[in-house]
C-alpha cells in the first residue's frame, strides 16, 4: 500500500475534536444570554451543529500527525472556528452583523485576535453577542499559544524555532517532557493572567478608582486584553474608563505580548531568563522609544494638557498597537501626522514570539537588525564568519533565511492589499486615502484592529466594499497563522506524494 500524499482524515478528526470543544464556550455564552434575558438560540443552534459535525469528523481513522497534516489542520481549524463563530451573529440578526460577510468579518477578526470591527452602533447588540466577540478573541489568543507549542514548533516558520533559541531551551516543548503538559501550563498562565486582570479591574472599582466597571466589563475586557485582541463592548473602547484602569490595562497588554515561556520561568522564581532575554529588552526598548517619539509629537501639536495624560495616552496607544491589541483611549485618528505615523510604524513590530501577539514580531526584527549589522561588518571583512546570536545562542542560517522570507512576504502581501483596497474602493465609487488604505491593510493583515480614517479607533470597517472585506477576511486568517501554512497547502507539491 502506498502512502497517500496527505492524510486528510487525520486532520479532519483533529478538527472534529476542536469543533466539539467549541460546545463549551457556546454553552457558557448561552448561559450568560439566559442570565441577561437575551435569546439563547443563537448559541444553542451552533452548539448542536458543532457537536454533531465534531462527533462525525472524529469517526474518521486517526493516524499520527505528520507535518503535512499539521499544516492542513492549522489552516482548517482557524477557518472552521471563524465560520462557527459567525453563526451566533447571523442568527441573532442584530444590526450590521445580520449580513453574512459582516458576520464572518467580525468572527474572523475575533478568532484571529485582530479586533477590526464592522459594528457601527454598539447598542444594537446584546451583551451576550458582545461577550461572544470577546470570548472568540480569548480562544484565539490561547489557540495560537497552544498551537505554537504543539504544532508550529514542528513547522518551519522561523518564529517558533526562534522562541526556542530565545528561551534557551532546545525545544519549547521541553518546558516539560510532554507537549500536553506544556500546553496546559501555558494555558494556566493565560487563564491566570485573565483572572488577575478581572480582579484588578474590580479591585480598582472597589477602591473608587474605576466608577463604571462592572463584572461584565471586567471579564469582557480581560478576555481581549490578555489575548492582545482588542474588541471592547464600549464604542469608546478603553476611553470609556478611568486613567487607573487604562494604566492597569497597559500592563496586561504588555504582558500578553511577552513570551509565555519566559513568564513561566518568572513564575518559577527565575527572573534571570526574562532579564537576559535580548528579545525582551528589544521589545521593551521599541515600546519605550516609540512612546518617547509619540510624546514628542503630541507635545509639539499641543494635543493634551499635562504630563500624565500625554504620557498615558501615548504609551497606551503605542502598547496597544505594538502588541497588536488595538484598544484605544482616544481617537488617535485626529492626532498630528507625526504621532499617527509613529503608530503606523508600530503596527509592523508586534510583540514577542511565543505570546498571543500577531504582526511580524520583535524577534524577527531583532534577527533582521543583527544580520544586517553582520552584513555591514562582513562587507569590510569579507572572510569574517560572524554568526547571529540571540541572548548568546547562535541562530542558524536557515532560520535567518526563513525570517527574511517571512518579512519580505509580509511586506509584499501588505503592499498588494493596500493596492487592492484603494482600487476596490475606486471601483465601488468610494474614496479611501492611501495612508488610510495602508493603515487598514496593515491593521487587518497584521491582526491589529483599528486603523486610520473611517476605520480608525472610533470608526469601523463597515464602509469598505464587500470584496475588500472578503479579502481582509482571508488575509486576517492568513496573517494569524503566519502565512506559511496557508501558502503551503496551496502549493501543488503539498498534495502530491
Amino acid at each position, binding site marked *: 500500500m502506498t502512502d497517500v500524499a496527505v492524510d486528510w482524515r487525520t486532520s479532519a478528526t483533529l478538527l472534529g475534536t476542536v469543533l466539539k470543544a467549541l460546545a463549551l464556550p457556546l454553552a457558557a455564552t448561552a448561559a450568560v444570554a439566559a442570565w441577561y434575558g437575551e435569546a439563547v438560540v443563537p448559541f444553542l443552534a451552533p452548539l448542536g451543529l458543532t457537536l454533531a459535525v465534531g462527533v462525525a469528523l472524529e469517526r474518521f481513522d486517526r493516524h499520527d500527525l505528520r507535518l503535512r497534516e499539521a499544516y492542513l489542520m492549522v489552516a482548517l481549524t482557524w477557518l472552521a472556528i471563524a465560520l462557527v463563530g459567525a453563526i451566533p451573529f447571523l442568527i441573532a440578526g442584530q444590526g450590521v452583523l445580520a449580513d453574512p460577510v459582516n458576520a464572518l468579518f467580525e468572527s474572523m477578526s475575533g478568532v484571529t485576535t485582530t479586533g477590526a470591527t464592522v459594528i457601527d452602533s454598539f447598542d444594537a447588540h446584546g451583551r451576550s453577542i458582545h461577550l461572544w466577540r470577546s470570548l472568540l478573541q480569548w480562544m484565539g489568543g490561547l489557540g495560537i499559544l497552544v498551537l505554537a507549542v504543539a504544532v508550529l514548533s514542528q513547522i518551519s516558520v522561523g518564529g517558533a524555532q526562534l522562541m526556542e533559541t530565545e528561551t534557551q531551551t532546545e525545544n519549547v516543548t521541553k518546558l516539560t517532557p510532554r507537549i500536553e503538559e506544556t500546553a496546559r501550563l501555558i494555558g494556566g498562565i493565560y487563564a491566570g493572567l485573565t483572572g488577575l486582570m478581572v480582579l484588578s479591574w474590580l479591585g480598582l472599582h472597589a477602591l473608587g478608582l474605576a466608577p463604571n466597571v462592572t463584572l461584565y466589563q471586567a471579564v469582557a475586557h480581560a478576555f481581549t486584553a490578555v489575548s492582545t485582541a482588542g474588541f471592547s463592548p464600549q464604542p469608546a473602547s478603553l476611553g470609556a474608563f478611568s486613567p487607573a484602569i487604562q494604566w492597569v490595562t497597559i500592563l496586561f497588554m504588555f504582558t500578553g505580548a511577552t513570551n509565555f515561556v519566559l513568564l513561566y520561568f518568572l513564575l518559577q522564581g527565575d527572573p534571570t531568563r526574562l532579564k537576559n532575554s535580548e528579545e525582551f529588552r528589544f521589545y521593551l526598548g521599541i515600546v519605550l522609544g516609540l512612546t518617547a517619539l509619540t510624546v514628542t509629537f503630541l507635545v509639539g501639536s499641543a494635543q493634551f494638557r499635562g504630563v500624565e495624560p500625554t504620557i498615558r495616552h501615548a504609551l497606551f496607544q503605542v502598547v496597544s498597537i505594538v502588541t497588536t491589541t488595538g484598544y484605544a483611549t482616544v481617537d488617535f485618528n485626529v492626532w498630528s501626522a507625526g504621532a499617527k505615523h509613529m503608530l503606523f510604524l508600530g503596527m509592523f513590530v508586534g510583540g514577542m514570539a511565543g505570546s498571543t501577539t500577531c504582526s511580524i514580531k520583535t524577534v524577527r526584527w531583532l534577527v533582521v537588525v543583527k544580520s544586517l549589522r553582520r552584513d555591514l561588518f562582513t562587507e569590510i*571583512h569579507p*572572510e*569574517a*564568519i*560572524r*554568526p547571529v*546570536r540571540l541572548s*548568546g545562542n*547562535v541562530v542558524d542560517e536557515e532560520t535567518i533565511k526563513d525570517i527574511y522570507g517571512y518579512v519580505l512576504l509580509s511586506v509584499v502581501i501588505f503592499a498588494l492589499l493596500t493596492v487592492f483596497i484603494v482600487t476596490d474602493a475606486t471601483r465601488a465609487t468610494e474614496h479611501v486615502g492611501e495612508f488610510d488604505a495602508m493603515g487598514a491593510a496593515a491593521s487587518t493583515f497584521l491582526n491589529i484592529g483599528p486603523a486610520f480614517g473611517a476605520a480608525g479607533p472610533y470608526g469601523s470597517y463597515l464602509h469598505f466594499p464587500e470584496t475588500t472585506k472578503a479579502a481582509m477576511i482571508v488575509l486576517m486568517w492568513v496573517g494569524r497563522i503566519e502565512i506559511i501554512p496557508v501558502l503551503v497547502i496551496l502549493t501543488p507539491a503539498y498534495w502530491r506524494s
Partner: protein
Amino acid sequence: MRVIIVGAGQVGSSIAQSLASDHDVVVIDTDGERVDELTYSHDVLPIQGDGTELEVLEEAGIADADMLIASTDSDETNIVTCGVAEVLGDAFTIARVKQPQYLRAWERARGAFGVDFMVCTDLLTAKAIVAVIGLPTAHDVDMFADGLVQMTEFEIPTESPVANQTIAEADRFDSLTFAAILRDEEVLIPTGETVIQAGDDLIAIGSPESMRGFSTAVAPQSEGPSDVVIVGGGEIGFQTARLLENRGYKPRLFEHDEERARWLAENLPKTTVLHGDATDQDLLERENVGSADVLVSALDNDQKNLLSTLIAKRMGTDRTVAVVAAADFSSLFEAVGVDVAVSPREVTAEEITRFTRARRAENVAIIDGDRAEVIEVEVDAESVLVDRPIRESMADLPEGVVLGAITRGNDLITPRGDTVVQVGDHVVVFADVDALTEVTEKL
C-alpha cells in the same frame, strides 16, 4: 619501572624515547609499521594490538606494570584503555586527551574512568601560549604552588634597559629571584655582580605580580598586548582563543576550513573568526595583521607555522608565537626570528614527567629541552633544608642549584640567606641538569 605506552604516535614515541633508557617500556599500537619502526629506533618491547583489549594488555604484562600511559590520537580509546587497565592491575594510569570536556569531567571526580592522571595536551599548550602572551618578553611560563609562584624565562632584547645592568641593579622586585642565565650553551648561576647581556635568557622565579613588573622593566615600551591574532582554528587555536576571551581579549582567528570556521565562530562569541589561509598575504594585508601586537600560529604543520609567523613578522607584527610539533625545531624557530616556539609534545612530556620519574617533585618545568629543570618539592623532616638558614644548607647542595621561592600555606616567602625553611613548606628550586639527581635526593 615497567611502563606500558599505548599509542606510538608523536607523543607516545616521544615519551617512549625519554623513558627507554631508565625503564622497561612496552609500546602497544594497532599500526604494524609503526611498531616495527619503534623496534629499530628504541630499546622497547613493541606489541601490535588494540590497547583496549584485555588480551593485548595482558600480553603487555599489565599485571606487573607500574604505569600505563594511554596516548593514542583518540581520546575515547585512551580513556577506555585506562578503564580496562584499572580492571587488570594497579598500574598508575595516565590518559592523554585532546578534548578539554573529558578533562573537566575528570577534574570533577579525580580517578573517574579509571584514569589516575589526565593530561590535556591541547589545553596545556594553549595555557602555555596564553601565559607567554600575557608577558611580552617571556619565552616560557610555568606556574608552581597553586599559582603563587611563577617561573618565567625572559629573553633580554638588545634595546632593553636591563641589558648591561648587573643582577644587583636589575633586582628591584621584592619577591623575585634570578635563578639562572642561559647564555649560548652555558647555564650561569648569577651572583649580584653578574652582568646581564642582550640575548640572554634569564630565568626568574617569584610572584606573578613581580614577573609582570620585571617584564615591563625588560621592555618598557611594550604594554600588554591588545590585538591578538591566532592562525589556525584547531583545538590549540580554539582553546587559546577561549582562554584569551576569558581574560577579556577579543582575538582574531584565521581558519581555512569553512565548516570549522563556522563552528569556531559559533563557539567563540568574542572572537572574530575569519575564513581564509594564513599564508595568503593579500588576506593578511587586508586584515591588517601587521598592526597586531601578537600573532599565534597554531596550524597543524610546522612549516606553515614558521611561514605564517615570518610573514607576520615581516608585515610588522610585534611578537610571534608558533606551535612546533617537532620539539627539536623549537630552538631553530627561535633562531630564525620566531619570538616564542611552543611545543605541545614538550608541554605534555613535562606534565607526564612528574609521574614517570620516581621523585618527590610536586611539579616540574623543563628548561630549554633538558638543560635544566625547575621543580617544586614539599619539604619533609629528612630534607637538608629543614630548620636551618638557607645560607648553611646551600653548602650541602651541589653547584648549579638556586632556591627560587618558598611557600608556606598561602604565603610566598622570598628566600634570603637567613630564611629558615620549615617542614611542610614548598620550595621551588632551579637545578642544572647535572645537579638534578643529587638535589632531588637531598631536598
